[in-house]
């Protein structure tokens, strides 16, 4: 606990220092104008750590050096025309950045992600380059990509891919901040900075709106049932816990500090006595299963019927996808219908998918 806090403080300090060091001039270097002369001297641009904003976004001048989320400095020599991604979150980012026409390879089993069928059906026919846990090096090289986007878990493949002459960027969108960093990285590397800035601004604006309308309201206790099992839940360090907090709820499992799903017991759930039970988007069991579970008899959420599942019609809103903020927007509508009425929630969700993915969510939900 103390070590974690100390680390957080050190990290926070480091972030503040780096921001101060970069300041506005550094953000300014992310503009197209600055390196016009320097590019002639082949002095590539170094990316600032700040997330892009509509003010700082500009056209990327190549070659550009970016620092990816593995901390590697990567030179992207020209605007990439052929992209591959082996991780559903980064693949979804490429769609949100309007790059779907340039994507030539995606992860295995794209049919499992409804967002592809809705906004980039051509992905279902694309060649597969592996999974988020294992990359098919040959298949990847055969596609002759200009840029390979991989999750941090696949860092071991970096050397092999570089040896094949490929440009690789690692992303690690594990929470909202890292997601914004990943969007900034991809926005600069693929010359879609304005779009990345809009995406980030959308999420930030919704987070601010929720904070405003939910200021001072009573916060109900929420239990989040995991994907694989109702008795799996997310502790404070997980993205899902942030989502509950942002939506104006209290995660009953916040005392748990693990960074992955943890096992709990019926007894523990009864002792927490949540007022709302929320099921993860990809839960292998249903709301009806939970309501009918005799072991949960007497739990407030069951007695009041407050059991809901995070919708997964487009994508899992309890994962840090570009539209992840919609999970908090949707949950706030469930927990605080007075402050966040249903029509307003639906409007926000529609606006997001129309703007960044080109379909109307309310038509498919």
């Amino acid at each position: 606990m103390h070590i974690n806090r100390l680390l957080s403080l050190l990290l926070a300090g480091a972030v503040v220092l780096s921001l101060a060091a970069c300041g506005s001039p550094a953000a300014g270097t992310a503009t197209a104008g600055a390196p016009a002369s320097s590019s002639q001297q082949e002095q590539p641009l170094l990316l600032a750590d700040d997330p892009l904003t509509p003010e700082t976004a500009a056209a990327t001048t190549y070659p550009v050096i970016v620092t990816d989320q593995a901390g590697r400095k990567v030179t992207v020599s020209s605007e990439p025309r052929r992209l591959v991604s082996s991780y559903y979150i980064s693949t979804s980012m490429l769609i949100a950045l309007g790059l779907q026409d340039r994507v030539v390879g995606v992860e295995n089993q794209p049919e499992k992600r409804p967002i592809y069928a809705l906004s980039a059906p051509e992905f279902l026919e694309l060649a597969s380059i592996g999974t988020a846990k294992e990359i098919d090096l040959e298949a990847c090289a055969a596609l002759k990509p200009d840029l390979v986007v991989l999750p941090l878990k696949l860092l071991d493949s970096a050397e092999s891919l570089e040896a094949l002459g490929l440009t690789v960027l690692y992303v690690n969108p594990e929470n909202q901040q890292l997601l914004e960093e990943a969007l900034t990285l991809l926005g600069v590397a693929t010359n879609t900075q304005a779009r990345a800035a809009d995406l980030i601004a959308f999420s930030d604006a919704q987070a601010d709106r929720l904070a405003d309308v939910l200021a001072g309201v009573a916060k109900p206790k929420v239990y989040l049932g995991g994907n694989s099992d109702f008795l799996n839940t997310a502790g404070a360090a997980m993205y899902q816990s942030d989502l509950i907090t942002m939506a104006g709820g209290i995660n009953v499992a916040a005392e748990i500090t693990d960074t992955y799903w943890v096992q709990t017991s019926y007894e523990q759930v009864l002792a927490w006595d949540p007022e709302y039970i929320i099921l993860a988007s990809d839960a292998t069991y249903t709301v009806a299963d939970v309501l009918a579970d005799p072991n949960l008899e007497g739990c407030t959420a069951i007695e009041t019927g407050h059991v809901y599942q995070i919708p997964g019609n487009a994508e899992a809103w309890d994962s840090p996808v570009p539209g992840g903020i919609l999970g908090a927007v949707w949950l706030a509508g469930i927990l605080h219908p007075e402050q966040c009425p249903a029509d307003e929630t639906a409007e926000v969700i529609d606006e997001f998918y129309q703007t960044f993915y080109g379909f109307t969510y309310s038509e498919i939900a």
Partner: protein
Amino acid sequence: MNSIRPSMALLTVRSHKTALLCTAGMALLIVLAVVSLFTGKYPLTWQGLAGGDGMQLRVFYTLRLSRTAVGLIGGFALGAAGFVYQTVFRNPLASPDVIGVTSGASAGAAAGILFLSGAAAVTAASFAGALAAMGLALALSALDQSGKQATIVLAGIAVHSLAQTALMCLKLTADPERELASIEYWIMGSLNGISGYSIGGNLLLCAVCVAVLFLLHRQVVLLSAEEGEARMLGVSVGKLRLAVLLVATLAVSAVVSLTGLISFVGLLAPHGARLLTRRNDAGTMLLGGILGGVLLTGADILARSVAATELPVSIFTSLLGAPFLIVLIVRGRKGYE
């Protein structure tokens, strides 16, 4: 081999020492059972239970009591079945995995997680997997008419590998975020999902099988003899061995299909018992069962109380069991064969 040569002296619980050890073991088991009944995340109080607090009574009867029962009976069955395996195979390393039962249970559970829904279905699928593995191992061994003991071990190894391959294929097709995680959690083994609504059939089967094993205790001990000797004593070795293994395996299947894999109990409890009694008789089998119950109940108490989350019970069966076994071996090496 002298110590496990069948003789009238070894066929009944006559040893004063064994009786004493069993009594002490039972006392420890009872203490642990009481501790288990009052250890858990939901705050239970005597006043609440006596005063008829509906919620507390529900937690006590459907969750706490059933979890304790599975720890006691399940641990006892694993210990007693382990004794049977080691005796019948005359091999101190024998365990249900020798004939692929636990691998079969894992593969069955994985199939249940992938293709069925609900905890009861996974338990049923796991049980079916364990039975299928056992049936296959016994059928394969029956192909060899010579009735050699090694045949069943070889058949078991083949079935174990087959079940592992099936498990790997199932894992490969599983969704990494949901199903694969479920399979891994299942394999880790835990008593956290146990409730009064899900254990009835399994515990009953388990208790019946254990009772049958004790009724057959003379024959079990006879099976540890050289085959020639057993035959001379009028035992149909091949059939008896199959029958005893079948019953022991049913008991193990009933437990692991409910809890997931639990390591070490089936191996350690009978060893511990033999090191303590220096015998190989029904009393030792009883003590093996008691030690199994003590180990699983003790481990489960720790699994649910040392952290804010539920931990896999096998971590504690190994942590508690290994030092105990080492102490026993160091102290009793001379007298143990």
